[in-house]
């Protein structure tokens, strides 16, 4: 593995809307991050195990997959809670990206252990700065 590859940080986007995934991908690709995608919470969890990302961007409202392997995980909040309770991943930054913008919603997100909560529509530049900061920390 080259030094460059070691430096490239991996970001996993778990979001059901393909157009939003594309937007985020375009945003973060330019900031030299390697982007991986999942379209629901269960698939997202699987991918976490497989690619072991350095940061996860997580939507909250996602449809359930019919063949649910992890029946307790319905949405982004469940997944975040699960990850933060797992010793292997609890240090991994998780950022919520959600259309739910009320203060109660934000609080719920933080309550399950998220590092930050970004409300859609968001500024891509702001997102890059946030991600940079969280990556810089870890």
């Amino acid at each position, binding site marked *: 593995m080259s030094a460059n590859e070691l430096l490239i940080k991996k970001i996993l986007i778990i979001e*059901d*809307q393909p*157009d*939003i995934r*594309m*937007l985020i991908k*375009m*945003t973060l690709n*330019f900031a030299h991050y390697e982007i991986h995608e999942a379209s629901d919470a269960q698939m997202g969890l699987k991918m976490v195990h497989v690619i072991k990302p350095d940061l996860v961007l997580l939507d909250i*409202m996602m*449809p*359930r997959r019919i063949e649910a392997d992890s029946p307790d995980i319905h949405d982004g909040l469940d997944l975040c809670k699960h990850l933060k309770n797992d010793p292997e991943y609890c240090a991994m930054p998780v950022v919520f990206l959600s*259309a739910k913008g009320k203060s109660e919603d934000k609080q719920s997100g933080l309550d399950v252990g998220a590092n930050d909560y970004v409300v*859609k*529509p*968001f*500024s*891509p*530049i702001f997102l890059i700065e946030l991600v940079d900061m969280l990556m810089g920390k870890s």
Partner: protein
Amino acid sequence: MSHRSINDSLQSLTSAVRHTGLGALLSLSGLETPAKLAEKADSEKTAREFDAMSDNLKATIDAIPDLLYDIALDGRYYAAHSSNTWLLALPAQNLVGRTVQDVMPTDAAIIIMSALMQAYENGLSQGKQYELSLPQGDLWFELSVARKSTLDDDVPRFIVLSRDITVRKRFERMLKQNEEDLHTIFALSPDGIVVFDSNNEISHVNGLFCDITGYRHQRLIGCSELEFNVMMQDLCNENSQYLGATGLPTSTKVSAPNALCQSYVGHIKGSENVSSKKADTRNYIEIIKPNYRILLHTVIELNQERISRVIHFRDITNEAMVDRMKSEFLMTAAHELRTPMTIILGYVELLKSRVFEQSASLEIYDSIHDQSKSIVGILDELLDLARIESLAGKAFNMKMAALAPTIDKIGKRFMMAGDTRKVKMQPLPALPMMFIDKEKLAQALKNCLSNAFKYSSKDSEVSMEVRLINTKQQAEVAIIIKDHGIGMTSEQLSHIFEKFYRVDTSGKIPGTGLGLSLVKEIIEYHGGRVQVESGTDGTVVTLTLPVIGN
């Protein structure tokens, strides 16, 4: 005066009294007749006593406002007296010797005779009423008859008092009418009403309350407040508590048992606390038996002599449900706008901050374009809602027009964002001119096509066909839209025309649930009908329009 002259005076007085009939009445109080007295009359003192007695009697009789008669069982008048001579059918002296049957109209005579008969059998008859048409108007009289003690006379005789009850009768009639009117209003009220009397027991319930609760009228009347509360509690969900009239807080805040009602509370709140009189306490209750209903429960304290309180139940189930659906719809619409806005804002910011290579920029522009169209779609649906709310009928612009070009255009141009499919069009038959609103029909077609696309996979076909049907009664045009999508169950089919009803509630398929209700309104406004058949192999929507010429 000598004994002889007293006697003479008495005798002439007696015959005078007898003439006026007054003499006969003296035996009312069992007084001895003047003749008898005269026999005893040996002294002036007796004569003076006689004078006093007859004066007192005359005063008594004068004080009676009623008509006073002495009538025999065979109907013959022996005496008649009235302080209001105009009430007598005939002057008193003309009555004496004649009979009731002669003097009175048949109907009245029958009643008077039956009163006499009753008094003959029982000693007393009270309450019989008869009507007379006199020059001064229709009058009502009530009889009070007492049997006289029969001394010498072989024909039974009666004292008959006849009271003018016309005014009372009139008021009775008015009261009855009022009662009937109120009863009708009470019975026809679209709301349930329960009235508690001064003993806090139920005195009235109306039919609708019985319908709503399933409790019968007889079961409810006489129930105490406590029993009533128990009965109501029984209808509610075990988790919610029926507080009843006295259990409710007297605060003016309207409480709602659940979120379903809370959205409706807002509308009611504004109308409270307007009057300064003691506030009615209102809240919402939910009953689950016999049917699920949400009722606006208002307690009106009257604390009157006969009514202590009235509880008013207004069925607002429909309104509350529609209100909730409207709120959900608005939230959904607002939420759905966030996604396209996220993308548009995001990409525009990216474009401003850096230079993309050609292929990437084109992709970005496409995405912005698609998302903008998506927003327009959502806004159109919001406008649809506004239109439906504000009397859709007004917005129709009917004209004689050719329908075929409209169908053709829509069919050829229709596409959904993110979907490459086009509508497969069958060749259109020649169609006559029709009295239609082209724009509204175009909207209806778009809504149907939109559903067909949304609920089918991107590799399946959506087709549209038009048929001209000539039946004996009427020519019709049928527009048939077919898809091979996920279809609907019969349960789902039963709801599809309801406003805001969405088959897919997962949020994956965009939509506001208004599309088909709008289609139905438009087609029915044209005098047509909408039929939907659906199964696992797809859905067929048929819009049938009558050909209405000019």
